[in-house]
């Protein structure tokens, strides 16, 4: 008879296999995100090879190449990657917390809150830079709190939260439109650039704040991955399993909203990335494993790919947000139709 330590039971074999698949798929997605980012750097008016990119990185490339790669393309690709990851992670944590794919922050009004705050700052108060950044983050947080407060009834319920959020989003979008109509011509352009979600202005100065906030947000949420997972079993079961449910929900919401608002303040709201990343990760990994990193990687891939298509394949310079909308819109319609068929 073999000892039990060398012979693994069917359950533990299956569990190990699931874990291995999970790591492999997540790893492949992260590699994929890096590959598309390199592609983004290499493509353009002048196409650069990997050797050019490495030369530019270690400072041995000729001036024109170095400038083009290091000053124009590299920061843009990095910002696309970082912010894509931020959108993806925030989307996943909201969707999982509320047990509803429609509960992503771009649908339930949190992005709309950041938008209103930003557009008001630009058109009414003439803010820019850090102040604008701060106000947008505040707008996202306040909206999140308002949606939670309005939908709170002995706890947080996914469906009510989604419906209240959609209502709040429409209200805030109306305010944004009103602000835009009565704004000065010059401000309208700035505000429009904010609202469409664009990487055209990405620069090195964006990389650090967005990168730090996404890294910190990821680490915080990664420590809570299992808690987030248990919360899907409902308030009572989660409490019974030792989760401080309300505290966990608040921490997850606050961390996600701060991270999301900062990336939104960096690129503007790139439509549907939050909404799409989590479900795609779940499709690839199987539904029931914490897939924060995978959702982040998919967010990166979506934004970078959309940027490549927007820059080079679409005619003229289309903002990246328009590309993601073209994909995200139909998916939203399909998912809503599916949800309605099943009953919300």
């Amino acid at each position, binding site marked *: 008879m073999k000892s039990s330590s060398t012979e693994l039971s069917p*359950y533990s074999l*299956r569990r190990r296999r699931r874990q291995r698949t999970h790591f492999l798929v997540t790893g492949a997605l992260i590699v994929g995100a890096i590959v598309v980012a390199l592609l983004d750097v290499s493509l353009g008016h002048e196409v650069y090879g990997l050797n050019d990119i490495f030369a530019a990185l270690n400072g041995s490339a000729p001036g024109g190449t170095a400038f083009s790669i290091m000053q124009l393309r590299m920061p843009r690709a990095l910002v696309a990657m970082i912010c894509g990851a931020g959108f993806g992670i925030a989307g996943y944590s909201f969707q999982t917390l509320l047990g509803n794919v429609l509960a992503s922050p771009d649908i339930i009004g949190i992005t709309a809150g950041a938008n209103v705050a930003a557009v008001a700052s630009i058109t009414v108060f003439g803010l820019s830079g850090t102040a604008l950044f701060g106000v947008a983050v505040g707008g996202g947080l306040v909206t999140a709190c308002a949606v939670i407060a309005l939908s709170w009834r002995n706890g947080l319920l996914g469906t009510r939260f989604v419906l209240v959020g959609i209502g709040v989003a429409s209200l805030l979008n109306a305010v944004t439109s009103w602000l835009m109509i009565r704004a000065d011509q010059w401000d309208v352009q700035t505000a429009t650039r904010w609202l469409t979600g664009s990487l055209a202005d990405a620069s090195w100065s964006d990389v650090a704040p967005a990168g730090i906030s996404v890294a910190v947000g990821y680490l915080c949420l990664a420590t809570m991955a299992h808690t987030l997972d248990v919360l899907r079993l409902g308030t*009572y079961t989660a409490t*019974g*399993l030792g989760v*401080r449910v309300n505290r966990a929900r608040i921490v997850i919401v606050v961390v996600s909203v701060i991270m999301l608002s900062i990336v939104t303040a960096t690129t503007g709201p790139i439509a549907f990335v939050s909404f799409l990343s989590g479900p795609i990760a779940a499709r690839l990994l199987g539904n*029931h494993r914490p897939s924060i990193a995978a959702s982040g990687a998919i967010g990166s891939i979506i934004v970078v790919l959309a940027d490549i298509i927007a820059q080079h394949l679409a005619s003229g310079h289309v903002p990246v947000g328009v590309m993601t909308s073209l994909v995200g819109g139909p998916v939203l319609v399909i998912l809503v139709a599916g949800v309605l068929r099943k009953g919300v």
Partner: protein
Amino acid sequence: MPKRSAETVRLKTEKVHLGYGDFPIIEGLDLQIPQGKIGAIVGPNGCGKSTLLKALARLLPVQSGSILLDGQAISSLPTRSVAKIVGILPQSPSTPESISVEELVARGRHPHHGMFGGWDHTDDTAVEEALRLTGLSDLATRAVDTLSGGQRQRAWIALSLAQHTDILLLDEPTTYLDMTYQLEVLDLLAELNISRGTTILMVLHDLNLASRYADWILALKDGGAAAVGSPSQVITEDFVRSVFRLDSRVTRDPDTGTPVVTPLAQHSLAALRAKADGAA
């Protein structure tokens, strides 16, 4: 009466008041849950059975009085430590879409882990044992939402078994199940009590099943305990009349000797037909 010495009680209530807002449900209840026994909470709809069970599992704050686990207020203990001692299976818990049986059961190990998981051999063993005890080993990879009602309930009980708690609270574990499945679930809980010595307290609607499977019964009515004791002490014709407002005959089950409540003949189609014919 169950034994009531201090060493054999871990969970108890002292003058506990429970309710929602201004609406009182339980008023000043003293209850000691004897260790290693199976208890059943019975009572008419709305008497606070589920409310009491939730409060015992710290899912509901007390309005006044206290719920003590090992002598300390349960609300003041770290919730994760409580989760290693007291398990709760709520009524109709929400099953995430397409989760497999073994992945659901594995969630029961959550209180035994730190922040990053750190799954080890003990966890594997606990999940496997829970699957085996509930007879779900062959269904382990099936999605819970494709199972029958009885199998689904067993999957949730397996989650509680994997949690490895000394005390297990269950809110109507047999609701929505047909008779065979009801007995299957109660057999499973009895076996758990016998093999692990797990203390079980469950809300049950069926007085006959409560009598068959419980060491002791708590009957709630009008915000307090109408009766506490062994099934044969508690379940009498007077008790059924006063607590449930039902005229019944209480007999002994010829095989188990436990009380069997049969409503009087006036509550039957034949009697009502005869009455209608008489009036016509």
